[in-house]
């Protein structure tokens, strides 16, 4: 009898503890497991604008939250205080949300932070130019795209970062590209959707970049003809999930250039954005053939065959969905940027190592081009290597020149170095899966040729 009472009391205590613990969790994370998304009114944004990612600063948008149940009804608007808001991202500890918002119509778009258990708001950026597409960095800073007016009347977005109180703002991409929709890779790099705007408009691609703006390199180029790509998210099992020109795509983190996989088929609808829930499921924004607007749906990997969660409203598009859930914090990469310096270096192992085969000669010189043309040039060594010191934080391109002065390859894509950054290249437009040959490039035996 006594024993039963003891056991009963113990179980009772455990149950009470469990209730208290659960209540604590609910209070701390009241929105855990819910879906947060951007409501885009049909009236203000056309389908075409949506598909081409041209709705960043549209009016009347709002961020909503909803339980992930079948046919959900209680959709709560989180950004009632804003004229327009979008691009929500939840912190790794699921306590707060950052987003881009326009407080009053006509205001500059800024980055905002909202504490999720009390909806408390904090303005992150105080910029003179529109800021959008925020992403949490692993050290608590925030990266975002900011509209800038560059030389030659060019308008595009560059990536910036700052602390969550807005201090220490730093530009981290420096190229005439539209750098938007950045996400984080678990290895600690940013994955930014980048599209050249000068001298001609290029195809979209993902660049992987360290959060200090160093080591930008091609991660995945869109397939030929693709016009837009959504923000990409990495799942726990190292797959990247995103939408490319309306198609739902996964690629392997380990080998992104050669692992593209199409999920589902055109008959299942047109996709706009995707968020990996876990290794088996993706939350997508999709417009089914029978619908007029984009709705939200959970789909299974690798095939789309279940409708666990689906809703659609004819009056607005539901896009950019994310789930309030704990996510692993990416690695905090160390930075070698030294703002007291004004240059960085490029070392190339062999300028003639390239996928672009040419039959007329080998590289004699490398020309460095800026926005206004040739900045300088240097001879390459016998082994094809060159070692350059280039002014930091400015866009440059390279082209290889034959002994006769003919352009052999190039100009390359835009690149830049951060102050004190060291960059290495195996070749020029070489197979990007090749590791360098283990040799001493002759050029490294001398100091770098300064081109600023």
């Amino acid at each position, binding site marked *: 009898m006594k024993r039963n009472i003891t056991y009963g009391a113990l179980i009772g205590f455990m149950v009470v503890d469990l209730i208290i613990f659960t209540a604590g969790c609910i209070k701390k994370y009241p929105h855990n497991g819910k879906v947060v998304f951007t409501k885009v009114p049909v009236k203000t944004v056309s389908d075409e604008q949506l598909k081409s990612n041209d709705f960043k600063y549209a009016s009347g948008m709002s961020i909503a939250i909803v339980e992930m149940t079948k046919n959900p009804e209680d959709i709560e608007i989180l950004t009632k205080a804003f004229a327009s808001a979008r691009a929500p991202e939840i912190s790794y500890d699921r306590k707060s949300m950052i987003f881009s918002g326009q407080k009053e119509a006509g205001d500059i778009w800024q980055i905002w932070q909202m504490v999720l258990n009390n909806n408390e708001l904090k303005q992150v950026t105080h910029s003179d130019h529109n800021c959008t597409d925020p992403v949490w960095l692993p050290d608590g800073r925030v990266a975002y795209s900011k509209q800038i007016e560059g030389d030659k009347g060019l308008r595009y977005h560059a990536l910036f970062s700052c602390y969550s109180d807005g201090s220490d703002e730093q530009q981290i991409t420096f190229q005439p590209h539209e750098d938007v929709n950045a996400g984080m890779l678990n*290895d*600690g790099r940013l994955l930014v959707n980048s599209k050249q705007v000068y001298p001609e408009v290029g195809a979209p691609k993902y660049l992987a970049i360290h959060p200090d703006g160093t*080591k930008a*390199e091609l991660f995945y180029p869109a397939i030929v003809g693709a016009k837009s790509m959504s923000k990409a998210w990495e799942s726990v099992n*190292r797959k990247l999930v995103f939408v490319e020109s309306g198609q739902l795509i996964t690629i392997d*983190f*380990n*080998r*992104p*250039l*050669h*692992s593209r996989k199409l999920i589902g088929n055109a008959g299942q609808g047109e996709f706009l954005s995707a968020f990996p829930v876990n290794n088996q499921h993706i939350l997508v924004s999709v417009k089914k053939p029978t619908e007029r607007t984009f709705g939200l749906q959970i789909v299974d990997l690798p095939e789309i065959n279940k409708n666990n969660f689906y809703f659609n409203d004819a009056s607005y598009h539901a896009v950019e969905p994310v789930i309030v859930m704990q996510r692993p914090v990416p*690695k*905090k*990469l*160390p*930075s*070698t940027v030294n703002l007291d310096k004004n240059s960085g*270096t490029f*070392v190339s*192992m062999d300028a003639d190592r390239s996928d672009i085969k040419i039959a007329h000669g080998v590289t004699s010189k490398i020309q460095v081009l800026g926005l206004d043309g040739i900045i300088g040039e240097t001879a390459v060594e016998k082994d094809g290597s060159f*070692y350059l010191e280039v002014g930091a934080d400015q866009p440059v391109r390279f082209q290889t020149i034959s002994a006769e002065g003919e352009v052999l390859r190039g100009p390359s894509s835009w690149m830049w170095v951060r102050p004190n950054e*060291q*960059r*290495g290249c*195996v070749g020029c437009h070489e*197979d*990007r*899966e*090749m*590791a*360098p*040959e*283990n*040799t*001493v*490039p002759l050029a*490294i*035996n*001398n100091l770098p040729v300064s081109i600023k």
Partner: protein
Amino acid sequence: MAIKKMNKKLIYGFIVFAIILAVVFSALHKWGVKHATFMAGGVPHPANCISCHVYPQRDGILANFLNNEYLTPINAAVNPEGSKLYVTTQDADLLLVVDPFNNKVETKIKVGRRPHSVVISEDGKSAYVSNQWENTVFIINLDTELVTDTVNTGGGPSGMDLSVDGKILYVANTYTNDISVIDVVQKQEIKRLHSGNYPKGIAASPKGDYVFVSSQRTLPVKFRTEPQTEVTIINAHTNRVDKRRNFISAHIMENVAFTPDGDLAIITLVRPKNLVPSAQIERGWMINHGIGIIQEDGKMAQLLLDEPNAFYADPYDVVVNPNGKYAYVSHSAADVVSVIDLDIIRSLLANASEEDIKNYANNLGLSSQYVIKRIKTGSNPKGLAISPDGKFVYAVERMTDHIAMIDTETLEVVNDLDLGGPGRITVTRKGGQFFNNAGHTFHEQYSCYTCHPDSHEDGLTYDLTGTGRNFANVQTLRDLYGTAPYKWNGKNVSVYMQCGMRFSKFVTRTESFSPDELDALVAYILRELKHPPNFHDLPNGKLTESQKRGKAIYERTMTTDGREIPVKDRCITCHNGPSYSNFKMADVGTKKDYDDEIMFDSPNLNNVYESAPYLHDGSAATLEEIWTRYNPDDRHGYANDMTKDQLNDLVEYLKSLGAEYYQEDNLEYKVNKSQL
């Protein structure tokens, strides 16, 4: 009233005492945090005295209480029936007899110091165990489970294999760079063949014609040129070296295996990028991992097992399924076993031009064609063994005291065999797991072990600044306790600083270790990593006559023509004490045009014989070259008056320098050995 007054006084006294205590504690704590953070190289570190002052201790009550005796299994073999597994354990000096189907360690057979490999005779009646720190092979009767015979070998016997007829046992002697040929009927060494540098793996070809021996370290090469690591090919009929085949830009070739019909020899290897300016780590700029292939017609190839954004560090062992279709490679720093489709490799190689073969060696995308599965294991999978029917592969998890049993049909781990090590994972053990794991480098590209195999060094010089300047010769991590400062430029006052913030910027290039991780790693390095015994002297523990003459030169105060050598120019001045170092910086005239530093830390000299190349930049390929090429002005010890014979004597003496704590131990062993 008086009592009340007394109480009041007591209370006031207590309050004052508490305030003083709080102030002192606060000041001490503040100083402690500052001190710990400085010593940890800028990683904010809590003031936890035990971290630095107790965990790394090798002896003492506290050290014993905090640490456990682990088994640390390394290699395994299966009996011909497939019913028993024999496992060597490095730290417990045991051969374990394991029933893998009933999860039972049946017998623990005491073997020699630091057992490395085990080979089972074809009839299943005998086991041969190489005792790496004892220079012997034990022959064990598996019926009685008793050691019946001991055969002396060269230094550091490690990998072994039996000839196809079972009459000859080949043993790779790692520390003396030779191969013992042992007649197992006579139970004695009949021949010793010169091998590559640090021979490790060994395999007899199935047709019985050849024995292949893979090496861990590069052969001596011209300064700042590609490493070249030898596979020694022995003619098994004559027991003479038939060929020496070098893999270029590869090293740490730990093991080798043949396919059943002998068409491929597969060798695990690491491809360092030590000559490439380490401007970045992305895209395999630092170190790649893979296999070397030698085809029956002699053609060689190197294939990577890495992927563009994922590296599988430190391939250690390789076994081939009896069906000849699949090979299994353990990646000891990635905690996976890769399953390789050999038919795809055969087809790749059959259609490859010379240019293709050259490109394959650096192609990170190729592995997705032939690696069909990565099987996750526990920490630090080393030796592999495959059952005779090919149904199971056993992966020895060195840092968990477990064995993963892999079903080759499902390619899943179907059993986790506990060898009976301590259940508790101590701080030091955790450090061992970090040391042997690549998880703390960008894209898991390399572990501490990769550049410090066997806790030593890889014998290479790296351009870690990425500027073509200040090349760094990798230094040993053995016996570092009490030998600060660290690094050639002596800038690191502690191993914590060495592995701290700057380390993550320039070496690991990812998130730095947390204070707890750093504590564990440093405790492991300082407490566990020891030099092996140095047997470069006579079997009775005495120096040879040449070494005695060399010792006199080492300690001399006068030149050969009778002039006094200035104190600063005597060997013994900078290289004294148990580690043969005064731990001070010195300008010995070794600065080159590409160096920014003039002063270098006086290195420790224990087991210096196995640390080639020498000097801070690795420019001296041999000990001799330190004085014949890089000491023209006698600034690195007064030496130019010596004859060649005297220099030989000095070098012979230097080769005999070993850790003090072995001396009694060694003497006892050597006396016993000399009586054999």
